[in-house]
Structure formats: structure tokens, C-alpha cells
């Protein structure tokens, strides 16, 4: 027997901490257009490489290249840019509203706008998303009224959730957006269950589950993959890898060694990895996975490689754990600028039109904000009633809740 020495405990550390120079030299970025596009009914065993590459469409010059390009019309691309810009403006205004004390809390999507905005356009009416708190692009791109989103954020008298939920925990069955829970990963297996139900019912609708890189460590991620694979559920399992789970870099959830996409392979689930800052690539991959589900070919796992450019939430200060300029150094760039450059390259857009669109969108968001604030904000104006606090725990209020409502004087 050889003497192997004392055991040593291993804790992964990010490459760089505050004060250091951002370094993504270890992130391998394949050339745009270099990853093949298989048929949706491909034998999953033959496309294992796709879990270790990154599907990209837009190159450095803003051209759309390769087999995943060419799925969107000019109008759809222009609409996509508008959705992403709207989400970014919405975020900025709500972030400010939180700082002004109009609400208690907010979470931005900065840098991740392409993921939810482009995915939403690959779905059909009736499909159901099981989102996390960082996919509001599904609502923006799905035509959900911005004022209603703000009413929820302000917990005002027009809040569709009656002031019961923390800001941004939206719910809209009508818009295919499942009620958001604060408990991470729970929705991932629920998405699979919804998809199973659709298959049991002989329906045509499919589900999409959403999870972040950090939450893949939760047990329900595993549960979802087992169930999705066992029952060949018509579900797209999305992992948004934005490199950070609050202060914890993706290596703590064991990213970096293998990929999150590759987690699907052990369950026999085909897995794709895509440039999350490339609107065209996200849409093309989403469409592929959605079609697989729709054609009863089973689940697909998709990892969106992106970067959380903003703070985790309004309660977070990223400068305490990562370099300030790290988002600028992120090699996949900014999704809005990349699509903008593509549209300019195509002759469909210009810097002037972009500036004009920014101003228009800001006006629209401010108008919505004024309308929402007329219904009240968290600490001023009209509020949901105290009676609403006791309603909806059950369909019918049981006697003990009626007694407590009386005690509360309402």
C-alpha cells in the first residue's frame, strides 16, 4: 500500500475576486455557426457533443451564420429587440422605484433579456411556463400588461395577487406563466407533472421548466429529470446559467467541470447548450426543443450560457464578491447590443432608430408606471383589503379562519 498522504478538503473558488482583473480565458467559445443542427427526431445518443459546445448564430460582425440561422422574419427580429429593450427599461424603472421606497424588492434581468424573450416566441398559445423569478421576458414578450406587472410589484389595490406575494412573483395562467414560488427548483418537477398531465389527457400543449445554475443543486432538479425521462414528458427543461447564484459562483453547483446541459445525458435526455446572449440562437434552440416535445419525442434539456450583469436583487451588492467590470469582460457580450448590431448589419435598423426606440419605450414604461401608481404603491395610496388576507387559503373559508378574520376586526 502506498502512502497517499493526508486527505485534503476541496472548495472550488472563482478565478477572480473583487480587485482582480476579470478573466474568462478559461471559457471556450465556439465560433458562431459551427455547431450542427440535427433533426428533432435524432437519436439522442448521437448528439451528446451538443451538451459540451455552445450553439451560436450571431458572429462578431453581427451576421447570422450557420445551420441554426434564418428562422425569424425581419419583423420578428425587430419585435424581439423591442421586447428586450422593454424588459431592460422596465427593470431600470422598477429598480429605481424600489430605491424610492415605492416597493420593497425587485430583481433585474440585466444581460439575460434574450433568454426569456426569445424563448417565449417559440411557444404556442396554451403552452405553460414554470418560471423562476428571472424570466419576466416571458410576460413582456407574451403581451402581458405592463401595468398589471407593476400593480403586483407595488402590492396596490389593483394587484392581481391581492398583496399576498412578494414583488415579481407574478402569476398568469392565461399567459402561460405559472405562479412563481420563493422556494427554488420546486417548479421544475411541477413543469414535468403539467407536461405528463397534457400527455395523459391526449392534449397538444407542452410545458417549459425554468431553473438557474445554482438551483440545479436542489433535489427537485434531479426529480424533474428522472420523471421527465421516465415518462417521456413533453417538456423543455431550461437551465439559465448566468454564472452566479447570489454570491456563489457556478462552480459550487459544480458547473465548470462538465456542463449543466450534460446533466441531462445521464438520464437519456438530449441536451443542448446555447449562447444565452444570442436572441437568434436562443429562439432557434427553443423552437427545436419545443418541436421535439410537441411531436411526443420527449424532453430536452437546454443550458443557456449567459451572465448575470446586474446585482442578484435590490438587496444585493455584487462588488462584495466579484470584480466590478466582470460583466463588461463577459465574452458573449450584451444581448441587446448584439441583436441591434445584427439588425443594423441587415439594414433594418440604425443608431438613430435605436435611440428613438429607447425614448419611446421609456415613455411607454413611464406612462404604465404612472397608471400603476394611481392604484397605489406599497406604502402609499390604496391597498388590497385586510379581508383579502384571509381569502383564498381554501376555496371555502373554514370556521377557524372565519373566527380569526372576525378577531382581526374585518
Amino acid at each position, binding site marked *: 500500500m502506498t502512502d497517499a498522504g493526508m486527505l485534503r478538503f476541496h472548495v472550488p473558488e472563482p478565478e477572480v475576486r473583487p480587485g482582480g482583473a476579470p478573466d474568462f480565458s478559461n471559457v471556450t467559445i465556439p465560433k458562431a455557426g459551427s455547431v450542427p443542427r440535427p433533426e428533432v427526431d435524432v437519436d439522442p445518443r448521437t448528439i451528446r457533443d451538443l451538451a459540451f459546445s455552445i450553439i451560436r448564430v450571431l458572429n462578431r460582425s453581427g451576421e447570422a451564420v450557420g445551420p441554426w440561422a434564418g428562422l425569424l422574419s425581419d419583423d420578428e427580429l425587430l419585435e424581439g429587440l423591442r421586447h428586450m429593450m422593454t424588459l431592460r427599461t422596465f427593470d431600470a424603472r422598477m429598480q429605481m422605484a424600489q430605491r424610492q421606497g415605492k416597493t420593497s424588492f425587485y430583481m433585474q434581468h440585466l444581460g439575460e433579456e434574450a433568454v426569456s424573450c426569445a424563448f417565449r416566441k417559440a411557444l404556442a398559445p396554451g403552452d405553460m411556463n414554470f418560471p423562476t423569478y428571472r424570466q419576466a421576458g416571458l410576460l413582456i414578450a407574451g403581451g402581458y400588461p405592463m401595468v398589471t406587472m407593476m400593480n403586483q410589484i407595488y402590492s396596490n389595490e389593483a394587484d392581481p395577487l391581492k398583496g399576498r406575494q412578494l414583488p415579481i412573483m407574478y*402569476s398568469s395562467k392565461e399567459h402561460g406563466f405559472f405562479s412563481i414560488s420563493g422556494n427554488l427548483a420546486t417548479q421544475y*418537477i411541477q413543469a*414535468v407533472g*403539467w407536461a405528463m*398531465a397534457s400527455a395523459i389527457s391526449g392534449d397538444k400543449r407542452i410545458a417549459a421548466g425554468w431553473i438557474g445554475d445554482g438551483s440545479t443543486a436542489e433535489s427537485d432538479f434531479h426529480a424533474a429529470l428522472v*420523471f421527465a425521462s421516465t415518462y417521456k414528458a413533453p417538456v423543455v427543461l431550461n437551465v439559465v446559467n448566468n454564472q452566479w447564484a447570489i454570491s456563489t459562483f457556478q462552480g459550487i453547483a459544480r458547473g465548470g467541470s462538465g456542463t449543466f446541459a450534460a446533466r441531462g445525458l445521464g438520464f437519456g435526455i438530449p441536451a443542448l447548450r446555447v449562447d444565452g446572449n444570442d436572441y437568434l440562437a436562443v429562439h432557434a434552440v427553443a423552437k427545436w426543443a419545443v418541436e421535439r416535445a410537441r411531436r411526443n419525442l420527449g424532453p430536452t434539456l437546454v443550458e443557456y450560457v449567459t451572465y448575470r450583469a446586474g446585482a442578484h436583487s435590490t438587496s444585493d451588492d455584487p462588488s462584495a464578491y466579484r470584480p466590478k467590470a466582470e460583466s463588461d469582460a463577459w465574452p458573449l457580450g450584451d444581448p441587446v447590443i448584439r441583436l441591434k448590431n445584427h439588425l443594423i448589419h441587415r439594414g433594418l435598423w440604425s443608431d438613430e432608430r435605436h435611440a428613438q426606440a429607447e425614448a419611446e419605450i421609456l415613455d411607454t414604461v413611464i406612462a404604465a408606471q404612472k397608471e400603476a401608481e394611481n392604484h397605489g404603491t406599497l406604502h402609499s395610496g390604496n391597498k388590497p383589503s385586510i379581508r383579502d388576507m384571509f381569502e*383564498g387559503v381554501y376555496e371555502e373559508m373554514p370556521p377557524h379562519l372565519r373566527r380569526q378574520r372576525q378577531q382581526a376586526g374585518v
Partner: protein
Amino acid sequence: MPRKTMIEAIRDAMDVSMGRDEHVVVFGEDVGFFGGVFRCTQGLQAKYGSSRCFDAPINESGIVGAAIGMAAYGLRPCVEVQFADYVYPGYDQIVSEAARLRYRSNGDFTCPIVIRMPTGGGIFGGQTHSQSPEALFTHVSGLKVVVPSNPHDAKGLLISAIEDPDPVIFLEPKRLYNGPFDGHHERPVTPWSKHELGEVADGHYTVPLGRAAIRRAGAALTVLAYGTMVYVAAAAAEENGIDAEIIDLRTLLPLDLDTIVASVKKTGRCVVVHEATLTSGFGAELASLVQENCFYHLEAPVARVAGWDTPYPHAQEWDYFPGPARVGRALVAAMEA
């Protein structure tokens, strides 16, 4: 009227519900082809097909989480957790999701699911086949918690639970699956075929949730019990010659407080009996409610007989299980107080 075991009654409830409503689906570990480790789902897959009754991977969070997603879609899943002792991996889904879905979405999404689980001891089940975790569910707003004590109720309550628009935790005392049990483990077990509550009507009927049943009318003392303890309490009262009013709560949440209060105001004495551990058990809630609502009618302190505050042991089964001797001593003490 036909007599059935509790197992047959529970199976019958699922059969009737699946036959009436195509949205009812049944799944869990070993629930499909094999028909369940306690035979509660035997024949359902053959009758309704594997889309309606199927085996699940061994993952309680997965079973409950998938059921929640199905309910959000519009199905009515009735799922099984093989033993209540194994519900904990699914606890996050039950507490954080199933119980709160209606509330947090303001009714946009609802969760009409039933989670069946065999519960209770008295079978030499040791630590992980004997627990009674009902208090972990009665503390959760948004859940309903049901514990039947006989085949007639088991069928009617389970059909009610499946038809209920909200999530129901359905705890089945496995000690009662084949016959009533009063704690006299030295005597042979009487089968349900010899008991009047083994009479189970064919077809559809319901026993409403939220209503207790008075199993024995009495004037001297009120016993609040559920599950196996209903029979233990009855034996203890009989053996000590106490004219006890024995209330089988049947539903713990929402609780039938009116029946409890009316009884205690009549008798002036109350003993709460459950298998689950004492501290912060459901008995604490019952004792507190009786004290709040019946204080001026009470002739004696409200007493609790429960499992000891230890994990459920194996060899010491009958020193742990609150049997008729221990319950009897509490009844006598309450009468003498």
C-alpha cells in the same frame, strides 16, 4: 350491505372516483402493476390503463411535485407515499407549494390533490414504519388533514378528499387496514367482516370533511381521538366502567370544533389521545382549544395520552404505543381529579 376491509374500501373509493371522473389519476411507488405494497390500488391499472394508474420513481418530492403540476393542468391526482415516515422528502412540495398555490396565485392556479399515506404504529414497524406525522401537516395553512378509523369512513372520506378543491393529506392507520385494533395485541385480531363499520356501500357516497363522529355517547368524560386510538379509548373506557363520550375526529384540519365543545360542555372532562409524540403534537392544539372554549365547564385539567417523546422503537412496541391500560389510567385520573 357488503363488508369490506379498510384496504378494500380505500381501493373502492379510488375505483369509484376514477370511474366517475377521467381527471382522477393514481400513482406512487409500486402502485401500478403490483397494486401497492398494501394492495390498496390492486386492479386499478388493469381496469383504467397505465395512463390513469402507474408506478413512480422512488422520489417523494417528485411524486408530490408532479401531482401539483398535474393539478395545475386540471387533473385530480390521488398519489401515494408508501409510508407516512417517508413523506419528508416531499414536505417542501406539500408545505411550500401544494398548500399555498391557491393563496399565492389568488386562485389563478389550484391544487386539488390527495396524498395518501399509511400511518401509525402497533405493527412492530420500528422507527420508519410507525410514525404519525399529522401535526406536521395540521400546522400548515392551506392543507386539509384526514385520518379515517374504519372502512365506511375511509371510502366516504377518500371520495370527499378526491372531490375536494384543495390539497388533502389522507393518513391511513395501517394497523386498522385489516380490522379494528384496541391495543390488546395479545388477543387475535377481529376482521372488519365482524364489525358494523366494515359495512361499505357500493358505488358513490361521501363522508363530509370537517365533521367528527361520536362513536360512543357518554356523560362522564369526553375522549378526543382519531385512527387506532378510537378503539383503544373505547376499550379503556369499557374496562374501567367509565361512561365516556368518544369522539372520532376524522378530519383534523379543518376541525369540527362545535362537536368537541358541545361534548366537553356536557361532560366537563376531556382526555386527548393520539399515537404521535406528545410535545407540540396535535393534542396540544386540541387541549388548548378545549381550554379556551370550555374553561368554565371543566371539572378537571385536560389530559393528554400520547406516544412518548422518543423515536418509535421496535422491541419496546407495547411500552410505547398508548394502549388501553395507559389510556385507562388517564381516564380514571380525569374522573378522580
